[in-house]
Structures are given as structure tokens and as C-alpha cells.
């Protein structure tokens, strides 16, 4: 696989680190801000996924791998999305059925 990976210059790892740090600070600010709950949940999920994508793309070098490997690695995301979508109706229709 090493030989299959695209030749590329070393990414700016400190730049990625700084981006992750800034996104984390924004996350903490959003979590404390008096914003509507739906907005907060959506924003925090989007920020977390953006951070995860940065780690996978640059630290795990996925951005520079062969297209086939990227497809193999991303396929579980589709399966997990199906799992979550499948669970949402059940969780919502049974709201407040579980003790804390």
C-alpha cells in the first residue's frame, strides 16, 4: 500500500493541529452559548465530523491514498448512517419510555 499511495509533499501538520484546536474552541463556545437546542446539536455534530475528517484525511493520510482504499474505508460510514437512520424513528416514537 505504501507504494500505492500517491506521491505527495508532507502536509502542514501544525496547520491541521491549529485547525483542530480552533474547531475544539468553537465547539466549547457553541456548547455554552444560549442557542436553540436543534442548532446546537447540528453545529456540534458538524464540527465533530469536520474534526474527524481532518484527522482521517491528513494524519491518517487518507487524502493521499488510492481511490479504492478510500472507498473501502468510507463504506462503513454508509452502513453506520443506515444504522442511525433506522434507530431514529424508534427512539423518537418511544421518547420518555426509559428512566434516566
Amino acid at each position: 500500500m505504501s507504494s500505492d499511495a500517491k506521491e505527495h509533499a508532507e502536509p502542514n501538520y501544525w496547520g491541521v493541529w491549529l485547525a483542530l484546536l480552533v474547531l475544539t474552541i468553537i465547539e466549547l463556545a457553541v456548547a455554552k452559548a444560549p442557542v436553540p437546542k436543534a442548532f446546537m446539536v447540528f453545529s456540534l455534530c458538524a464540527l465533530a465530523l469536520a474534526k474527524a475528517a481532518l484527522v482521517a484525511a491528513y494524519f491518517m493520510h487518507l487524502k493521499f491514498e488510492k481511490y479504492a482504499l478510500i472507498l473501502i474505508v468510507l463504506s462503513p460510514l454508509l452502513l453506520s448512517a443506515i444504522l442511525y437512520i433506522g434507530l431514529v424513528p424508534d427512539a423518537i416514537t418511544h421518547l420518555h419510555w426509559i428512566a434516566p
Partner: protein
Amino acid sequence: MAHAAAMSHPQEAYENPLTPGWGKLMMWIFLCSDAMSFVGLLAAYGAVRLGSSDWPIPSTRLDVPLTALNTFILICSSVTMVKALSAIRRGDRKGLVLWLLGTIAGGSAFLGIQAFEWTHQIVVEGLSIKTSLFGATFFILTGFHGCHVLSGVIYLSCIAIRGARGGYTAEQNSPVEIAGLYWHFVDLIWILVFTFVYLIS
């Protein structure tokens, strides 16, 4: 052209399963299956939390600033890991060992802070895996991830010891890259756990 090249060098068409390329692919496949374990746990967490009538606000029960610091430490340890790989790819063995030691220190600090938080939750707050679904999901998710961090620290220690003995060179360093994939995955998962368990209220 590629087909013609493969025909003229048949050994290149069938890669040896023991070559570094296969090791990296196997780690990716393991990480995909491991990711599905976390997806299952997070899905269960979401379903249980949505179904609960009065789920506690995490920031009132958990130490968010301390855990944010822990998140920062883990992100820093990912940078030291990629720097370790860069060092050995330049043939810098000393740099490899030093950056790996930094990564191991980051992982150990993460585990220490998590152990402190668990102790506080169990001893002071009286939270346990039995007291509530909040406690059960908290300890299962952070505990499962913590086991991964502990495994990573042991894994990287083995790599560092071999690196210190001169086991890797600028040409032969794929075990370092493969260990790095595991470590970054642990970081990636924590980013999600931190958001879902600690931040969303």
C-alpha cells in the same frame, strides 16, 4: 501498459501477503470493524438518551474543561505521531524515538486524567455503571475508548523500543505508519465521544 508490465513481471501482479502494503490494508480493515463497534455503542447511547425523560445535562455532572484539556492532549499526541513517522522517513532514528516518546507521554497523560475523572465520579459523585443509564453509558463509552488508548500506549512503546534498537530505517518503516494509523483512529473516536457524551446538552 500496466497490464503489459504486469505480464512481463508476474510476481508484481500478486503481492505477497506479508509485504508492508498488506499490513497497512489489514490495519485499515481492523479499524473499519473497530469503528463499527463504536458506531454501535454511540447509536445505543443516542437511542437511550433520546428515550430518556430527564437525561442530566452533561456539563452539570461531568468536568468538561478538564476533558477539553484531555482532548487537546490527544490531538497534540497525533501531531507528535505524524512527526515520528516523518522523522524515520528522513532516516532520523533519534527523532523517531523522541517523537514517539512524546506520543506515549500524551497517551499516558490522557489515561491519567481519565483515571482521575473516573475516581472523582465514582468516589465523590457516587456515579457508577449501576446507578443510572447516564452512568452506564458514560463508563462503557469512555472505558471502551480508554482500553484503546491503553493498548495504543503499549503498542507504541513496543514500536519505540524497536526503533531505539535501530529496527526501522528510511526505507523500512511501515510498522511505524501502521501503529500511527491506530493511534490517529483512537484520536478520531475520542473527538466524537467528547462531542456526544460531554458537549451536547
